[in-house]
């Protein structure tokens, strides 16, 4: 099973629905037959939210789920682009470039997987848990969020995972504290074949370290600011043991053992 989809294309898409699903987080459903048919778990689309000249860059979003001709994206409203996206109404037209990037891979013989999602890190996990469940992999999922109101996709995760636990910073749901407390415990207890991680980079670094210690294969999905999304501009590089890689084509999913983590404080960490 390979994380690469077919060649990307520009697809005009129509907004089917767009609604708030958690505090500051929305889900937009797009009618996008070509992309929906070809996207692989962990891949992303590069969205042209508005045509006005002051939107120079597309915005990258993981595909949360693809059902029939439709793509689901879960997005947090953080800046100019996502504020405009939030205002999109059913029937509005935009376009996506996709499917892009190298997604999650399921190693031969995997029977037990641990999925660790922090904040919006839950977004790329939708298609993943669906694919794992189809392949009869037993899934344990640990999700972290600032508070109960910001937990995402609970229904999907609860229905497909053998076990699904949460941690919140304020204790309003599940364990009080960071999701990394859960992941440490689960890695020890369950000894999964593989761990899939997405969330703020410091959290991914910690879980990757836990996996290395526990001897568990670990895949991480890294975010970088992206201009082209197709590998041409080198704005999205990730330092790896095999040199600098492009998050948009060589990632966003990387083998955690390859990643050279930035020891500096990550400015994106706040999110």
């Amino acid at each position, binding site marked *: 099973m390979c994380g690469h989809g077919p060649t990307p294309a520009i697809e005009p898409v129509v907004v089917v629905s767009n609604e708030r699903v958690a505090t500051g987080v929305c889900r937009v459903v797009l009618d996008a037959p070509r992309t929906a048919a070809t996207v692989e778990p962990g891949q992303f689309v590069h969205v042209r939210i508005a045509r006005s000249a002051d939107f*120079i860059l*597309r915005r990258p979003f993981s595909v949360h789920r693809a059902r029939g001709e439709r793509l689901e994206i879960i997005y947090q409203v953080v800046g100019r682009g996502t504020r405009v996206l939030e205002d999109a109404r059913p029937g509005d037209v935009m376009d996506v470039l996709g499917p892009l990037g190298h997604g999650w891979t399921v190693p031969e013989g995997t029977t037990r997987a641990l999925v660790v999602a922090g904040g919006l890190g839950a977004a790329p996990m939708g298609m993943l848990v669906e694919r794992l469940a189809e392949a009869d992999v037993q899934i344990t999922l640990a999700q972290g969020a600032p508070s109960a109101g910001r937990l995402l996709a609970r229904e999907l995760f609860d229905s497909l995972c053998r076990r699904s636990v949460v941690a919140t910073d304020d204790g309003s749901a599940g364990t009080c504290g960071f999701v990394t407390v859960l992941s440490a415990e689960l890695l020890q207890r369950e000894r999964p074949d593989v761990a899939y991680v997405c969330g703020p980079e410091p959290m991914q670094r910690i879980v990757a370290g836990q996996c290395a210690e526990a001897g568990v294969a670990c895949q991480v999905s890294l975010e970088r600011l992206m201009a082209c999304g197709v590998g041409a501009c*080198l704005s999205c590089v990730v330092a790896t043991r095999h040199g600098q890689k492009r998050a948009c084509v060589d990632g966003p999913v990387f083998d955690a053992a390859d990643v050279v983590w930035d020891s500096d404080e990550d400015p994106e960490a706040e999110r």
Partner: protein
Amino acid sequence: MSSVDMRVRIGALELRNPVMTASGTFGSGKEYADFFDLARLGAVVTKGVSLEPWPGNPGQRIVETPSGMLNSIGLQNPGVEAFCDNDLTWLARHDVPVIVNVVGHRADEYAAVAERLEQESGVHALEVNISCPNVDAGGMAFGTTCPAAAEVVRSVRAVSTKTLIVKLSPNVTDVTEVARAVEAEGADAVSLINTLLGMVIDTRTFAPVLARGVGGLSGPAVRPVAVRMVWQVSQAVSVPVIGMGGITSAEDAAEFLLAGASGVAVGTANFMDPTTTVGVVDGLERFCQERGIEKVTDLVGAAWKR
């Protein structure tokens, strides 16, 4: 409608149309070949290639600005050997002229890259990017002083018989001076503009957004500056000018041709729409047809040739 003669000449090189890719925004073409046939382009201009591999700049490398963006990629590239092995070999399979953007920290580094490329028949022209920091002269870009610019061009000209395009920096008081200086050293063409130096400061962290502090401003925001400089330079030199800076459409490209450019390049707009270049090719042909213009070269400098 009758067909338009879209051919243009840049030095010894004849291009099937005036539309190229701007260096650094199109990789070596491979990434965009999924979207259209590269043979539709006038030429592919590659990212900057240096003698040794360059790692590029750390940290956040881009930021969006009003109708533009800053980049501080730092000319990351695998060096000329790897470039020849991988990118050139791949490009050779496509029917499109290849212009290699050449970078260096000292004049002799530029010359060494040019010398290495001299053997490659798949390289149709060099674009000498004199906007890199001049290590020997304390980091100020070659492109900002006439003597330094002239020295780079002289040393490349000495080893290269290929069509030589010199890419000018807009961060100067009088861009025509530098243009004349490089023309005098044997440049076959000049291209402009490279990016304007800019900075964005993050009001949350109180620090510059880009790890390097400053970056290069590109995109529609800079178009009026680019058109002005093309207008000035095309009247100051007799070699052809390749114009770029914020081109997103055929109308934008026409503006550069009217200002005096013989060719144009599309950069930042590729990020928004990977098919921008072919749209510009088709649109320019229509632009001419609608006005009964038979040769695209009739547009060149029409705004000042009266």
